[in-house]
């Protein structure tokens, strides 16, 4: 039986390695499967949209396409900070049932594309019900640091793991 290579397969029940794009939020390092990433762009003019939660920053014009932009800091409850020149928007594909949509995710800075071997993967430990961990694919211990690998469909998607949007 061959599981999905490249992207992390949650269905396997056990986190597997692959290529991840890593980025920082505050002092934490995160990663998303590289196959989900479309491109990385500088922060551009964001048009605010009314009546949405505060972590939905608005919409941007990505070469003629209108796509929503999410502030991952606010989504995770970090204090908001001023955007710096390292602030980036990672454009990702997200399953927003029933459709796939492109979405921009604002992060503090983008680090690198990381190859994570299966042996470096660790299942998400049980935090004793204090934090929801369904949206975490697993933890990767690489070069002495821990990267939190995210399941973007669950972070940004509609399945309600982290509340609707």
């Amino acid at each position: 039986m061959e599981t999905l290579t490249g992207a992390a397969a949650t269905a396997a029940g056990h986190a597997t390695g692959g290529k991840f794009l890593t980025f920082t939020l505050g002092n934490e390092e995160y990663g998303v499967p590289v196959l989900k990433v479309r491109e990385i762009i500088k922060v551009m003019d964001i048009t605010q949209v009314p009546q949405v939660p505060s972590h939905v920053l608005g919409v941007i014009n990505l070469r003629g396409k209108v796509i929503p932009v999410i502030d991952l800091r606010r989504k995770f409850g970090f204090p908001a900070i001023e955007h710096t020149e390292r602030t980036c928007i990672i454009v990702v594909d997200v399953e927003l049932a029933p459709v796939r949509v492109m979405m921009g995710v604002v992060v503090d800075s983008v680090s690198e594309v990381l190859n994570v071997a299966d042996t470096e993967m660790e299942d998400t430990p049980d935090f004793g019900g204090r934090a929801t961990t369904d949206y975490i694919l697993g933890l990767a211990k690489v070069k002495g640091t821990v990267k939190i690998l995210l399941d973007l469909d669950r972070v940004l998607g509609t399945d309600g793991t982290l509340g609707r949007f």
Partner: protein
Amino acid sequence: MSDPNQVPGDDAELAAFAADPELAAMFIADAADHLGTIEETILKLEASPADLKLVNDIFRPFHTVKGNAGVLGIISIQEFAHRVETLLDLARSGKHPMGPAEIDLVLKTVDLLKLIIDELPARAAGKPTTDVAARRRELMDRVDALILGSAPAPSQSAPPAPVGLTSPPPPPEEEGGRGKIHRTEDQSTVKVDTKKLDNLVDMVGELVIAQAILAEDPALKTGDERLIRRLAHVKRITSDLQRDTMAMRMVPIRQTFQKMSRLVRDLSRKFEKPCMLNLAGEDTELDRKVVEHLTDPLMHMVRNAIDHGVEPAGIRRAAGKSEAAQLKLSAFHRAGFIVVELTDDGAGLDTEQIRARGVKLGLVSEGAALEPSEIHQLIFQPGFSTAATVTELSGRGVGMDVVRRNIEALRGRIDIQTVRGKGTTFTIQLPLTLAIVDGILLGVGGDRFVIPTFAVQESFRPLPEQVQTLQGQPCMVQVRDRLYPLLHLGEVFSVTGARQRISEGTVIICHDNGRCVALAVDELIGKQEVVIKGLGEMFKDVRGIAGGAILGDGRIGLILDTGGLLALVGKTGSQVAA
């Protein structure tokens, strides 16, 4: 009378159909075209039954459908069509008159063929479909009976067995016969997936905007003659390209009008009210999407006109009108819009009855001073119906409100002109295309909004005394004796940096569904045509926003939706955000 042994449901015949989806889709589209042509022609034939050229015009597309079905191996369709074709063949050679029974039969055949062909994909996929065997057999029996009744011995032209692909070739073109039907065959066409076309239109829209951005670039203001000339050239090509791409999405309204002809024919029999439908401007072209969504509202309107508008023949005679009601359906261009009008010479709207009904439903107050035109607008309210009796088709109080909603969804508007005893005209005004909207650019704080021009009634800078406050909060604006509810866009959308004092900004009176709202904004920036883009799944619950548009500077401006804004009146920014 041989019983057909191939009945629909025996799906071995669909093997070829299922094997080649592309060919199958083409067959379905073609058949729909041809059956539409047959329907249109047969209604003409009904008016002049002796016209053999018309019979011929029916025979040919019929033959094509039969042939195509044969190529795909769909025996049940082929055989059925062949039987009816035999009758038409006799008729076009003058051996069999086309009477009401024959015409009715052909129409029923067209209906059944449409149904069978529409359901082919479902059948091929093994899904349950309507059982048409009985209807089919009945029609085939009727054909046989009609043929047997025809004067000359039909022995040589009515073979009872299916003939497969060796059926007679299409008849040669007769003098004067090179008419409309042949025209379509001369054009070489390519069938393109509409998604690709929509994408193209979208991209061209972006190109137009990108070109405009480039033209306004300050670096070009240096006055370099050569550069400006070259840019002008690009601009010319871009606008040509835009015009031609838009034209690709345009289709004539003819098919929709044809459906109405058929509807009028059926309804006038049903209600026993003789009606004549005159068509005008069938070649007027509209955006494909507009045409698609126009059929349902038009059908409602035609039903209403015949059921409620047109009086019974006795009353018409007493009123000195012709016994047959005159309906007119026309389409034409007017001032950058497409106008579709439905006129009847029936009883007209009963203003007093409508008012009484409106009072009863609590839509208007008893003694309200209303213009007749305002009272007539009440028929567009949900649940409104003054019909004394509920008929099968209309009078249940659904209808006109749905009609208006459908029209407004197309960014169009519908108006009524009516004269008691003389008749009613419904006028539908539609934009040329759905992809681009003519808008007015508004500034609020640092944000830009676009409001569609058709929704705007007037704009002005209010004097402080025009603004009426309630508990210290501005809530109404007075314009010439009328008070409009006020919506402060900056506040309701929580825009940072919006002007607080209404009298320092601009007020725009906009309307939707007959209701008005005064929109307070910081400034009016100008007019602009914009390509409408949906904001997507994530923002589908946002009220007051219809979409986004990419503006000249590359930023996105939100397009306002007046209907949604009206629902926000009286709410504060924090209430709206919740």
